[in-house]
């Protein structure tokens, strides 16, 4: 029994030693850190720049952005001189690692074509030293890398998006445009060309 206890105690100490080393490495942000906690080997951690414009057809555009240094910012709605809701703060490393992973998948998945939907968004992703990627899509509960990344970003923003419901809108629209310009364009298009209401 003493031998068993001795083995257990030595094992416990060895395991605790491993844990201590792992924690020490993870805590040192100056170095490549633990290469297994992120998608990158060597050098500094790289966070992507992610910018999203999101709106309903008749509503104002909202913006959420993730910066290179890991700060998330939001402007709801993002037009006029003063948004009703805005803010920014630096995310935790673990949150940034997850967002970075999701952004990587969006980059590989390529741009989606927008489908008719009540909420559309345009997302741009720029990792340093890589070709930027863009997604233009409708926001749904369905799994797509773009939806997943946007949902993850929204989960870090305490304010609610300003997304008023619109009636009888089937048009594709550009969520990066100012609401007034967008509505003008949609109205002009609906009056002149397409009886189905599509742009």
């Amino acid at each position, binding site marked *: 029994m003493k031998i068993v*206890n001795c083995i257990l105690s030595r094992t416990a100490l060895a395991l605790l030693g491993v*844990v201590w080393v792992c924690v020490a490495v993870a805590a040192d942000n100056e170095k490549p850190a633990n290469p*297994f*906690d992120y998608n990158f080997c*060597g050098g500094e951690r790289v966070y992507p720049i992610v910018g999203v414009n999101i709106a309903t057809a008749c509503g104002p555009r909202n913006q959420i952005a993730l910066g290179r240094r890991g700060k998330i910012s939001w402007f709801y709605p993002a037009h006029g001189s003063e948004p009703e809701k805005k803010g920014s703060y630096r995310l935790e490393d673990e949150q940034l690692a*997850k967002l970075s992973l999701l952004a990587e998948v969006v980059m590989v998945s390529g741009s989606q074509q927008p489908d008719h939907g009540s909420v559309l968004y345009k997302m741009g992703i720029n990792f340093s030293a890589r070709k930027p*990627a863009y997604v233009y899509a409708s926001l749904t509960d369905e799994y797509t890398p773009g939806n997943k990344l946007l949902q993850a970003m929204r989960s870090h923003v305490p304010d609610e998006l300003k997304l008023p419901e619109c009636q009888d809108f089937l048009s594709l629209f550009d969520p990066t445009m100012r609401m007034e310009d967008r509505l003008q364009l949609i109205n002009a298009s609906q009056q002149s060309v397409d009886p189905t209401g599509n742009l």
Partner: protein
Amino acid sequence: MKSQTVKAVMIITAMLLFNHGSYAADSGYEGLLVEPAKKLNSQPLMNHEGKPVDFPVSNGHMKFVFFGYTGCPDVCPMTLQKIKTLIRKLGEEANDLDFYFVSIDPQRDSTDQLKSFVSYYDPKITGITGEPRSIKALENEFGILTRRFQGKSAFAYTLEHSVFIYLLDSQGYLRVMYPASIPVGAIINDIERLKNS
């Protein structure tokens, strides 16, 4: 003393859970599902036997692809070790899968070096290299980052690079990406899902 052991085991379990997390559980996969799946343009490369191949090879097999270089000090050996464990756990099922290690350092990694490097882990792993231009084109297809830091002489440089493990379906489409921290069991679950999809 037993309580110390229990504590240590609990801490390690918590760390493993914390590290792995759930990347995109609502996709049905434990890795990061690429949706829509990406068709990859093949590139003229060569395997570690020196034979020319259009990579990714279209042979109806699902494939695991990993990028790295033989001089990589940490993450490449660990990831190859993970691939080795995956192959062992799959058993005979691994015969229907291909495993590739693509060198991002074709100027220093000869076919012989590549062969001995990957064979050390498992003979089922095939090393891939080729002209720098073709390797770069393949990196772009996979959307990976490689950066070179020059040292004092022409061959004294280090590379940093993305360390995903990529799973391609039998049609050659890129379907799932895995961070290096993914447990082998999660990859095995995804293989079954992909086979049944």
